[in-house]
């Protein structure tokens, strides 16, 4: 569904991505792991159109979205949940979800999806009339994910969803991602929490200072010695 080909992206003189290629196929969960500063967020930003690659291409459903305006890319079905979440603070939980359904006009479908999201995240149902700003970090993360789901995305990109969350909430987030896997949603998951990310993923890529150094199935990467040493605490 998504194919990134040999993309190079720079911030001025700094080359953040040096020829990155990756693929996400329909119905699979792909994890992108790597240390801080490896370029993971840069890659997501390039896919969503915030950044333009200096060379290479990004294809979505066979068509190039390279250089397309951000809002157009979103309307094509690529939704990103950013770190920092982007909650509309002066709107209620329910309103935030309604805003997610911006591009849709099927009232019944919207109501149905909202119920589905409240089933998934009961805490949001409990707080549906509260302002976004009054939610805790974990709740905001769930709201951000829920809101993205309201748009019925074809591809959902999650940028460090577990960042800054208490361990119990981290578990909840990854449980949700496992649910997504069951539901055969197409997900690109960027995470520093390598272990959890690879446990959920069908396939994974390891990004280090702007290049993909490893790729394979989630299970294979979990077992690989390099990944173990660099990201999973290694063997003594």
């Amino acid at each position, binding site marked *: 569904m998504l194919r990134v080909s040999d993309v190079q992206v720079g911030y001025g003189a700094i080359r953040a991505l040096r020829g990155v290629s990756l693929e996400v196929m329909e119905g699979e969960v792909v994890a992108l792991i790597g240390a801080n500063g490896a370029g993971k967020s840069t890659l997501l930003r390039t896919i*969503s159109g915030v950044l333009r690659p200096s060379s290479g291409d990004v294809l979505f459903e066979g068509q190039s979205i390279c250089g397309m*305006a*951000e*809002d157009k890319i*979103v*309307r094509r079905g690529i*939704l*990103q949940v*950013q770190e920092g979440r*982007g*909650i*509309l*603070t*002066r*709107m209620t939980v329910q*309103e935030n979800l*309604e*805003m*997610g*359904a*911006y*591009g849709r*006009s099927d009232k019944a479908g919207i109501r149905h999806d909202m119920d589905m999201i409240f089933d998934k995240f009961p805490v949001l149902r409990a707080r549906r009339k509260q*302002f*976004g*700003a*009054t939610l805790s970090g974990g709740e905001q993360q769930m709201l951000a994910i829920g*809101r993205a789901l309201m*748009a019925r995305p074809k591809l959902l990109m999650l940028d460090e969803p577990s960042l800054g969350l208490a361990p119990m909430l981290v578990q909840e987030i990854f449980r949700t991602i496992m649910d997504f896997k069951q539901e055969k949603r197409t997900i690109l998951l960027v995470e520093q929490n390598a272990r959890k990310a690879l446990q959920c993923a069908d396939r994974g890529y390891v990004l280090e200072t702007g290049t993909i150094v490893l790729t394979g199935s989630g299970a294979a990467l979990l077992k690989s010695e390099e990944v173990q040493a660099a990201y999973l605490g290694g063997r003594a």
Partner: protein
Amino acid sequence: MFDRYTESVLTNIGINIIMTLSMYFPMAVGQLSIAQVGFMAIGAHLATVLTLYLHTPFGLAVLAAALVPWSLGLLFGRLIVRLQGLTLAFATFAFMEVVQVFFLNFTPTGDARGLKGIAPLTQLWHVWGLVLLLVLFFCRLRHSRIGRAMAMVKHDEVVAVTLGVNVPQTKVLAFAAGALVAGVGGVLYAHYALYIQYSYFGADKALALLTYAVFGGIDVWFGGVLGAAVLSYMPVLLHVFDHWRLEIHGAIILGVMSMRPQGVLAPDLSVDTRA
């Protein structure tokens, strides 16, 4: 139905409501625009020239007074799309001033002398019919796609983009819509007041409209309706106080604003909504 005097008062209130509501279109996307009075002037002068000199039917004149400001609104809206806050307010204020000076000097529309002898074509039902239309429109706006887009743009432009909103287009459309309504307000005013002159369409009128909006609640459109209705009727009521009218008018506004700074009808958001 009503006697001439009452009809006149009601028409005046209605036109003020229309003009105030015209501000709420750009405000719905978070743009404080003081240009409405400029579009009102354009609508008023254009339509008057049509009915007065070219004997155009009223309907066509209203149409012209809607379409020309709409087009100008699209153009000018594009120019200001990147501006925010104070700079935006100044730019729209400048627009109004430029329009005013233009009509001051433009002889075919009467320059400094203005246009008189305008036919009294505005009827009560025209004005209140439009008010009703606008009220219905704003009621339905919240639940519509464009309404959601506007709410998001107002709240947080960056987030709006991440949800697929074409932010510049939404802002320009809102601005142009406000211009259109202001233009129609201008026609209705001209054919009610029967005399228009450049000096009316200036800072005083703009400030009055802004006061109506702030009084009633700048965040909610029905605040504009209340503010315009109450504050344009108040001078009539205050007649009894004779030469203290203006002071009492001002005092009432100050009093209400100090007790309810968000405006009479705006919700009391004393919850700390900072994340």
